[in-house]
């Protein structure tokens, strides 16, 4: 990766929750300007934790970066507040939606424009979100708590877009979305990326989709990066194929047929 185009540089960070639970054990990753980087890995690998460390939402979870550094365009950001990061264009879409339950969908979206001052810009952003997610427009007056899971996910993504970000940390955007909308979300990502040069770091379980749209990928296991490479290379790696894409040697396996047989991942050896 070309080092001077790096916007986000995470360097050997260690994260501890609650003073005792060590979760990240020296994670390093780089996100280039205008790139889409995927962060892959199983449950509990530490993807969310990595994103939280970057956006500094960690403190609210009683977590702490104890080693390493995080730089945004050369500036150390470990001590900036999340709000200051949003000012600098870094926004995180949190896993599990976290919509403001008592606010209507539209109010939820409008909270995203808190750091924006220009009325015209806000209106335009709102319009943009509604064109991306027409479903939200029809539900705009409902209280977020009473919308369906997928609608809330859309709302959370839309809310982040309202901040006019330059870097979006997307945590499991496809979770709970219908296939059609999943496609759409990734299209939107691509769209923003090419048209507005928004950089994305996305943690995803849907490896298939993620590698299809990303330029570069990191794979995490139990708090470490175990593999990284171009999206294309990763997609062709045989381990990745078997464990994350479901296409072993003999093509896609049916979910009905995977029985107890399991091959150990090489990097766990």
């Amino acid at each position, binding site marked *: 990766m070309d080092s001077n185009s790096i916007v986000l540089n995470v360097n050997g960070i260690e994260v501890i929750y609650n003073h005792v639970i060590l979760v990240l054990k020296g994670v390093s990753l780089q996100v280039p300007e205008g790139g889409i980087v995927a962060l892959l*890995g199983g449950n509990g690998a530490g993807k969310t934790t990595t994103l939280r460390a970057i956006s500094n939402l960690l403190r609210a979870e009683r977590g702490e970066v104890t080693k390493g550094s995080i730089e945004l365009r050369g500036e150390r950001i470990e001590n900036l507040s999340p709000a200051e990061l949003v000012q600098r264009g870094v926004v995180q879409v949190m896993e599990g939606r976290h919509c403001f339950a008592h606010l209507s969908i539209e109010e939820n979206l409008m909270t995203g424009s808190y750091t924006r001052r220009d009325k015209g810009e806000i209106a335009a952003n709102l319009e943009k979100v509604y064109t991306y997610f027409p479903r939200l427009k029809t539900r705009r007056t409902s209280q977020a708590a009473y919308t369906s899971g997928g609608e809330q996910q859309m709302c959370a993504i839309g809310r982040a877009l309202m901040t006019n970000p330059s870097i979006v940390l997307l945590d499991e955007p496809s979770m709970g979305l219908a296939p059609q909308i999943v496609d759409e979300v990734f299209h939107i990502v691509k769209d923003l990326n090419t048209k507005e040069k928004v950089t994305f770091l996305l943690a995803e379980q849907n490896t298939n989709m993620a590698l299809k749209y990303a330029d570069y990928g990191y794979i995490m296991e139990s708090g470490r990066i175990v593999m990284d490479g171009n999206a294309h290379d990763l997609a062709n790696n045989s381990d990745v194929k078997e464990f994350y894409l479901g296409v072993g040697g003999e093509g896609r396996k049916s979910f009905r047929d995977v029985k107890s047989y399991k091959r150990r991942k090489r990097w766990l050896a």
Partner: protein
Amino acid sequence: MTSRKTGDVILDVKNISLRFGGVKALTDISFNVREHEVRAIIGPNGAGKSSMLNCINGVYVPQEGSITFRGQTFSHMNSRQVAEMGVARTFQNLALFKGMSVIDNLMSGRNLKIKSNILLQALRWGPAEREEIRHREFVEKIIDFLEIQAWRKTPVGQLPYGLQKRVDLGRALAMEPQVLLLDEPMAGMNLEEKQDMSRFILEVNEEFGTTIVLIEHDMGVVMDISDRVVVLDYGKKIGDGAPHEVRDNEDVIRAYLGTAH
């Protein structure tokens, strides 16, 4: 679809309509579930799938329609009755008991079966303790089955999402249900984990003959493991049939699948 036999209709949903103020979550939905089958419900976001499950287990009260379970017809049941009749479920937005350990979460699924009264429990004396241990043994089986031994005593709030989903399933299984309602059990999982989950579901279905109603957005999973599929869109039923029939249905493609599949 090997050794299992699907039996008679065990659950019959008739003309259910559900409204929240102006929002029509469900309009005149009817479908049935046969014993021992895996029945999937699919549909775009906000179609009313979760609401449908909520009607079945008494969380929501539909304005119209009735539900017949094992020959008994109800317009509304309370959750307790539903649970007593052997219907268990998992939740889309995890509804685990966050402050409790994994074991306690699963044990709470067995509460309906516990007979000792409060005094015996306080003394933890003879029969009460034996009963507790009996249930604990059952729960341990589920823990082994779901491969979550290592987290037995962890408070579930601290587990990663995917494991929480497993615990949620475990809690439902602990009820030894005849019908198991699963609301997006595989959301937020990677392929390997989805495979595990599918395996769990199928094994439950095959070994205990549990009837399964499944909401899922991963079409791969739905196509592979379900016997019949209902498709909802904006609260209306737009399709019902075997997976491949549904997949080729024009309406379904337009409303839900999009072109790619």
